[in-house]
């Protein structure tokens, strides 16, 4: 019970379009691509309480570090430490299945926005191709910074040239940050366990397949989320696969940088 973790909390979201400052970070090109976020609860308490309540704000930059897997529009949420969108060893929710099979994050975002434990959410504007990145900005009410629930982040996105793979930072606790501080994380990829990994063109919604997205049938080896084993691909002997060597990846698949900007 010691450890003092960052008890930050936030609340509602508003709109924020802040240009992401060029973070130093390294390597890849920085897109100054900030995006809007959907406010979660427009009538909730935040805003204009006056100057003492200037919200905190965080830039979250997500970089696709795979070779050949575009990733679907990112879903980013700040929430209490206890909140999780999935657990390995347990079945995926239907909302997660939607994201994992089709790249559509709207159902999961709705779940998040309806959850008291989730403070703010944001969606990316579009697919992030390999090597590229996108930054979204989330605001948090200062009054929530002392919440005992803590502050954690989740980031989810589909690897679109797969049956049901996601890259996810799943409820990662954030250390206390001053304005200007950054923390970086890498994300594992998971198999949502909701669709057989046939790798056929008909079952892969990304450009390598052009096939079906969400399908309610659950026919993977087991109906549980687990760490992804990678794709086999036709290049490696799976004759029915529409994928080739360029679609393979290893961990980590995505890099995430969180910077407090306000």
């Amino acid at each position, binding site marked *: 019970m010691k450890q003092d973790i960052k008890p930050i909390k936030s609340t509602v979201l508003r709109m924020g379009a802040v240009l992401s400052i060029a973070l130093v970070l390294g390597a890849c090109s920085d897109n100054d691509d900030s995006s809007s976020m959907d406010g979660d609860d427009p009538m909730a308490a935040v805003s204009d309480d006056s100057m003492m309540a200037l919200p905190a704000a965080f830039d979250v930059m997500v970089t696709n570090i795979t070779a050949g897997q575009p990733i679907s529009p990112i879903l980013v949420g700040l929430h209490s430490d206890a909140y999780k969108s999935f657990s*390995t060893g347990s079945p995926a929710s239907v909302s997660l299945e939607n994201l994992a099979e089709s790249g559509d994050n709207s159902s999961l975002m709705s779940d998040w926005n309806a959850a008291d434990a989730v403070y703010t959410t944001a969606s990316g504007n579009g697919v992030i191709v390999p090597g590229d990145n996108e930054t979204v900005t989330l605001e948090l009410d200062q009054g929530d910074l002392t919440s005992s629930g803590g502050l954690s982040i989740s980031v989810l996105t589909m690897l679109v040239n797969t049956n049901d793979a996601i890259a996810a930072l799943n409820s990662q*606790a954030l250390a206390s940050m001053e304005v200007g501080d950054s923390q970086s994380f890498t994300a594992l990829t998971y198999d949502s366990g909701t669709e057989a990994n046939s790798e056929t063109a008909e079952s892969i919604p990304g450009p390598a397949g052009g096939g079906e997205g969400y399908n309610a049938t659950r026919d993977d080896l*087991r109906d549980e989320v687990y760490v992804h084993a990678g794709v086999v691909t036709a290049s490696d002997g799976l004759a029915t696969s529409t994928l080739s060597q360029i679609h393979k990846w290893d961990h980590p698949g995505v890099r995430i940088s969180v910077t407090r900007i306000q």
Partner: protein
Amino acid sequence: MKNKFNRSLQKTALGACLAASISPAAFATDFSVSVENLTRGIHFTPLLVAAHTDGTALFSAGSAASAELQAMAEGGDSSGLETMVDGLGATRVSNPASGLLVPGASTTANLNTDGTSNDSLSIVGMMLPTNDGFVGLNAIEIPTEAGTYTFYANGYDAGTEANDEIRGSGAVGESGFPAPGPIDTGALSAGTDGTGVSATAESFVHIHRGALGDTNSAAGESDLDSTVHRWLNPIAKITITVN
């Protein structure tokens, strides 16, 4: 309130020390260790969960495996390692899952190191079906403050047996992998009658390069199924709860 230390894969692979040890004052004496099999289709043989002194280790990546590690990695026999760690005064739990730890399953071991200097933790178990692959957590520093801590463990290759990927023996020095129970039959089972992947023993412990496998369950080079028996690291999630 809980703490989480999510270590990077690379750190885990190198067995680097936990970055954030807090006060060295109080030793963790009473804690539980939960091991979750994160793989798609790889079973773990009975696990050895051992708390031991700093400076000792069950294996070292880059160095040759001990005979005791070899027996565990090739056949799932941890008795030699148990004798070894008992001789070092370790605190251990063997076979917490009472058998194979199936993909997606978790098991928990409770340890109490009161009165000892056993402040490092190691976990090993063979990966089935592989020739000499094993899941390894290598001498991490046991957290000392009450809380919950997460670590990830990678798949290693003991380097003692050629990865021919066909059924055979779990005995030391004999080729092939043993195929008990769910490795023999069922949705996650190995195939048969592979001709054998051409490979040689590497002679040192290293991060496993993964399985090749194929899509022919009754022929081909490998008895592994490329759509079932592959994995990416990490392959296990370790949760330590210090009481």
